[in-house]
């Protein structure tokens, strides 16, 4: 087991190295010049030259790359080109905000989707199943900025139940004002609902048709016990994969949701860094998000092992 974890961690390091190299290469070929972006129409050749020199843009890319990697390894993420603020300072609070949102969705939104999937899977093709499948399809078909704006209009503007934006004043955090998490988390849940619900439903249906469930039912065990003791542990495995695969998305990929609600998380910072051509910031963000993907996948595999003894053996 320990060897397995060590091997996986080694793989993650290789993955991150490849990703960091890739993002550096993409940034190199991305159109747009950070110096021109910073100086706008006022740029003169001399001022552009001076700025590029100052940012070290004339040094070969591999030199800049290894400098950056070396810095990251020592915990120094560098300084944002555009704002001159240390990146660790910018990202520190953003990570906390993103974690809060992901946790909120994990605790409230995802169990809802899982329960709906179980309910639909136990009684497939009934009215409840049809309704839930349809809700899921609608949710997955609508872009997040549409669902988000609809929630904002209905729940915040029309009925005034929730704040329409997730802005935080000095001294406020997601923990002291959890209501600001509701709308972004709800929008996010709608997106994930269909994935998770359908995956859960499919595996519940499959398990329900297995021989051991039939045996348990014929033995006369009450239905709720069959579901709890036999169906759930077996049906949850694929669902966990889905949830793990979405952890990275929930932490850093919420570009649209975070922008619609002005939620100050990592996704909003990602868009900001692209628009401002703030490459050190962009590179650090991508690395951070890729790391989250890798680690949450590792955690998913480990929880497989915990749920299913057969995986532990092989």
């Amino acid at each position, binding site marked *: 087991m320990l060897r397995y974890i060590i091997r996986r961690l080694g793989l993650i390091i290789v993955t991150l190295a490849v990703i960091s190299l890739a993002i550096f290469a993409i940034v190199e070929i991305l*159109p747009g010049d950070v110096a021109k972006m910073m100086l706008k129409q006022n740029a003169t050749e001399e001022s552009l030259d001076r700025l590029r020199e100052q940012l070290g843009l004339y040094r070969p890319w591999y030199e800049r790359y290894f400098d950056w990697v070396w810095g990251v390894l020592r915990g120094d993420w560098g300084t944002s080109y555009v*704002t001159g603020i240390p990146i660790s300072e910018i990202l520190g609070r953003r990570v906390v905000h993103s974690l809060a949102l992901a946790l909120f969705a994990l605790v409230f939104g995802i169990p809802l989707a899982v329960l709906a999937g179980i309910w639909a899977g136990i009684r497939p093709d009934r009215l409840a199943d049809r309704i839930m499948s349809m809700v899921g399809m609608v949710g997955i078909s609508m872009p997040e*900025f549409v669902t988000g704006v609809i929630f904002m209009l209905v729940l915040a503007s029309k009925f005034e139940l929730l*704040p*329409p934006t997730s*802005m935080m004043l000095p001294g406020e955090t997601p923990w002291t004002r959890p209501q600001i998490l509701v709308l972004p988390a709800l929008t996010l849940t709608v997106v994930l609902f269909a994935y998770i619900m359908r995956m859960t439903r499919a595996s519940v249906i499959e398990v329900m048709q297995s021989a051991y469930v039939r045996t348990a039912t014929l033995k006369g065990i009450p239905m709720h016990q069959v579901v709890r003791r036999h169906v759930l542990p077996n049906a949850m495995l694929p669902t966990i994969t889905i949830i793990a695969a979405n952890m990275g998305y929930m932490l850093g990929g919420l570009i649209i949701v975070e922008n619609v609600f*002005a939620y100050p998380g990592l996704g909003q910072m990602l868009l900001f860094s692209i628009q401002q051509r703030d490459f050190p910031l962009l590179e650090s963000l991508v690395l951070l998000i890729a790391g989250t993907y890798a680690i949450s996948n590792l955690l998913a595999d480990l929880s497989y092992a915990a749920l299913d003894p057969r995986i532990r053996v092989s």
Partner: protein
Amino acid sequence: MKIRRFRWLSSRVTVFLTLSALALFVGACSSDPTATQAPQATSTVAPTATSAPTNTAVPGATATAVPPAPTVDTSGIKRGGTLKIGMLSDHIGFEPGLVTALPDIVTIQHTYDVLVFRNPDLTLSPALAESWETNEDASQWTFNLRKGVKFSHGKEFKAEDVIFTINRMFEIDSPITGALSKPTAMVAVDDYTVRLEFDGPNAPLLDSLVKYHSHIIPSDVDPERLNTETIGTGPFVMTDFVVGERASFKANPNYWMEGVPYVDEMHYIFLPSPEARAAALKAGLIDMIYDLDASSIPTLQDHPDTTVLQAPSGGYMNLAMIVTEPPFDNKLVRKAVQAATDRQAILQGAQFGLGGIAYDHPVVPTDPRFNADCKPPDYSPELAKSLLAEAGYPNGIDLTLYTSTAGASMVEMATILKESFRPAGINLDIVVMPEDGYWAEGWLVKPFTTVWWGGRPPYEAFSVVYSSDAAWNESFWKNDRADALLKEALGAASLEDQKRVYGELQCLVIEEVPRIITVFRPVTLGVRNDVMGAAPMWDATMSVHKVWLDR
């Protein structure tokens, strides 16, 4: 599954980026140099200003009339409270001489002061300079500085700070140095008097000094620090700044203007999406939206608790025709395009009727130097047709107009023009170029382009585009008379002289048609009904010095 998620996500990102491009780009672009279209205080009394309380005449010099410090009836004003302003989230840096992003500009406007303040109604008020005078030919300017003013780090404001600020502008190549002539000498006569000397007449000097690049910085601080800190004499002191989230300010207790500001605290809340800004204002989470998205205007006008404030700005949209390339080398073609341009339709269609009609020159109709005698013809497809026939195109002409969503409503204007040109026999092809690169590969390169400009005072507005050697001479139009008039304008100190010089320039560019300026753009603010005293400014920014909350 993971792969699918990425692809699916990226398509959403593209759509979102496209949708929000306009809003975001407003922020990116309105950051270029903006300025005034206003009466300037020179050796004559500006028509709107009252005469001076202090006429400190230097022997042999003309005294400048200085408006008195504004005395406002403050009896009904409620003090205190916290003002929350929602705005775009761009941020680059705070150094006044280099500031370009809109939120950064309004930050320094409320934490620093200029020497002379241009009010929302275009009159001038003394700020850090209590009064000023100039010699006969406007080549020497003397400013008498306010005493007892302190920067937020404790240093007293003195003549050395003015000299330091102006030196710094030239050292860092501030965009303002394009309009501000370099002084040949700067003399601190004493701690509270500074004299700027130029090698020739410099009547438009104050037009530069009222701009946001001219905020006075302290001379005892390493100016590199000013990129991340604000150390000024302004009405507010910044207490906290979180990139992309908020900036917080408290009222400066030592502010020189008595009783101002009225609120105790102010926060800028950075809300990148225009829907979020409008929704937050309607819900009362914020008190004000700065730089209102056009799409939000109708809903805020209809909401019972919110109001839209608007003022015309000197910023405008125009068409540039490169006069050295066919068919625009033929003046008759340019005049045909002029007659076929339906300005009213552009004002309604591209700007919701806000702002105002422009007449092919950059002087706003409220400016005393506006010349009402010269105007381009009203929209007339028949006239355009006959001009085209005279130019050798009896069967009409095909033109290609290059445009982009890179700011203002240029694409909307182009679309309206297609319809407006059709009855005149002009068949317009529209090419929408990507925002990235439009200013590098479209503007100044393609023969027929849409452009938008920030407002500038008359001298600068003409000199940056119409003088033969101007870097931004977007139509490559060279005219000896225009160059001569621009030179004369530098010494035109009295309003009468200015009316004559700028009046002739206006007629000249209407007649020669190097560019077609269609509409002036509006400046808009969205406010809650209980927010009093907020003012959209002439340079497309806002002033909250005198905002108070009626609650």
